[in-house]
């Protein structure tokens, strides 16, 4: 019998629990989970990456290297609307030049605009696996992503007001349950347990807390390591942190089909990749009376850089402060915290004056 494949995908926030589920339940392959991203991951990747590429390229490359060192023999890489489309090809070349042996499934190669081609790519992972079973696993995994995004959003909106300190424990427990889940029932059970546990905690939330909305590039904003746990830091300062950008909202549900129409006065056409979503979300936060917006982006991210003049105008029109954060390997934890504290104090002060 042919040996089971050992498949790995680079780390991407906590979404690896769903990716793992897809690989294991959908394709009956083993999933090698690379270790959580760390400075080491970043340095590994950055050492062999081109200088001027955006940071996610370097961190995902580092994560691939760690996965290969952990025993993976197959790496899957996704594609996207910006440079991400080209990540796979260059990363494979770099890994081969480094001397690693592995099989590389670059989904970008199959991204031709026809759905059939993507299915073809999935067959490569395990040709004998039935597509019906795979589809069922995908459905479960999507459910898992929805639960994860839902719980994460709830967590960051409330954990800043929990005096007992049990919120982080519940959230960590929930994540561990998702990584261990092997069936839809287990996924649902984890979600239910987390919700019950959260409900048992008494929060001390003021009637009108400081609310901060976060927008930003697809990777950095969703990956806590890449944004140096921005949401946790803000919550710890005492803010209600909102982030609309997640896989559920942007891919699985995508309920806001006509975002461009709602921002025509700022941008008539899409400015590339996630720009329309970002501008719309920023406006959404502003109209709902949020106290501040933070734009998160990796250094050299093209679409996010291009929308900065739009955000500046939006900030002027709605009189809402916007903090622009750019992340690269040099961004330090303490430096970020200082900036966040200053931003939070300013926002809080404005709120008091307005009241």
């Amino acid at each position, binding site marked *: 019998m042919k040996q089971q494949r050992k498949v790995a995908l680079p780390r991407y926030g906590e979404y690896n629990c769903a990716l793992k589920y897809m690989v294991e339940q959908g394709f009956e392959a083993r999933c090698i989970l690379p270790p959580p991203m760390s400075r080491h991951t970043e340095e590994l990747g950055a050492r062999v990456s*081109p*200088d*001027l*590429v*955006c940071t996610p*390229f370097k961190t995902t490359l580092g994560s691939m290297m760690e996965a290969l060192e952990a025993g993976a023999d197959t790496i899957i890489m996704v*594609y996207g*609307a*910006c*440079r991400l*489309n*080209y990540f*796979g*090809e*260059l990363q494979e*070349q*770099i890994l081969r*030049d480094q001397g690693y042996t592995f099989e590389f499934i*670059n989904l*970008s*190669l199959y991204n*031709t*605009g026809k759905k059939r081609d993507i299915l073809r790519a999935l067959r490569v992972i395990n040709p004998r696996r039935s597509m019906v079973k795979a589809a069922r696993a995908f459905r479960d995994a999507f459910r898992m992503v929805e639960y994860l995004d839902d719980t994460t959003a709830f967590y960051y909106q409330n954990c800043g007001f929990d005096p007992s300190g049990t919120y982080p424990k519940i959230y960590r427990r929930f994540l561990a349950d998702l990584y261990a889940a092997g069936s839809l029932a287990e996924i649902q059970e984890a979600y239910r347990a987390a919700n019950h546990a959260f409900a048992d905690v008494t929060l001390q939330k003021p009637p009108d807390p400081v609310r901060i909305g976060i927008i930003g590039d697809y990777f950095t904003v969703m990956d806590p390591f890449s944004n140096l746990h921005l949401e946790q830091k803000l919550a710890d300062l005492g803010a209600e942190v909102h982030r609309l950008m997640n896989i559920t909202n942007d891919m699985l549900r995508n309920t806001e089909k006509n975002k461009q129409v709602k921002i025509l006065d*700022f*941008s*008539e*056409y*899409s*400015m*590339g*990749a996630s*720009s329309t979503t970002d501008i719309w979300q920023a406006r959404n936060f502003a109209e709902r009376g949020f106290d501040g917006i933070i734009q998160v982006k990796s*250094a*050299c991210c*093209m*679409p996010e*850089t*291009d*929308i*900065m*003049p*739009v955000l*500046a*105008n939006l900030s002027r029109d709605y009189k809402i402060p916007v903090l622009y954060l*750019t992340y690269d390997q040099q961004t330090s934890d303490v430096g970020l915290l200082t900036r966040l504290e200053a931003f939070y104090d300013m926002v809080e002060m404005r709120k008091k004056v307005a009241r």
Partner: protein
Amino acid sequence: MSETLGIPRALLYYRYGPLWDQFFHALGVQTVLSPPGSRGLLEAGARLAPDEGCLSLKMFMGHVESLVGKCDRIFIPRYSNYGYTEVFCTRYEALYDQARNIFRSTPQRFITCNIDAMAGSPEPKAFERFGVELGFTPRQSRRAWREASAALRQKQRASEKAQRALAEKPGMKVLVAGHSYVLSDPYLGGPILDFLSASGVPALRADALDPETARRACARFSPTCRWIVSEEIVGGVLLWKDHVDGIILVSAFPCGPDSMTNELLVRRIRGVPILTLVLDTQSGTAGIETRLESFLDIIRFQRGEMT
């Protein structure tokens, strides 16, 4: 009374200029072109554009500013894609809206031509709509576009032919590869080409090639590369590299597509020395000249012309 359109002499003007010029000429639209790139324009643009934007974006915004108040509308086309697998860098997609936002406090008006095949606006259709917006009939606009795209093709063929003659000449030659708007800009790429010609080394250019041929070559070499302009540069490098003794990859800081395609070229091309130059806002040319000089020395040494 007809209006005057302003055209920034930057970014895609260096690729599609002949097409735009002929299009406006055929329709009888008056245009005003911004002056050639200079340090002043770059500095003005750097004050306006986002800090993290690329050098060429800053230069572009400088050109736009120089046109403010000098024309009725400034023409900033939005080149998005020719189809699912043929796209442009997101920067060109954003240019029009970005400029509108940057110059919002001025009374200046802008006009675009939206080339976005995936959203039902392929190039011929886009120019037809654009012509209609300028006040011409669809028929006149279609005709102007046909003439314009023929003019562009003719220009491309002429530059390829001229280069072929140069490539056949014996002696040492180098290939300069980079975006047309970097190489042809007198302030950005100018010093490089000037230095090469002063050193008596003929310089071939990767962008002097029929775009279709170049893109086909690139598709074989790097299947997931989808940026049209980068494909043309990569294809140009592949097809000219056997005629030269060295390749100089010129890029503007921090160009997104270049950061990846240049890396791939350096990793996959063997047998020809490659120099990578990244231009930034620092104005001196001495650093560039020193690097070019030593690169030429290496080639001469390899050729046995220097001992």
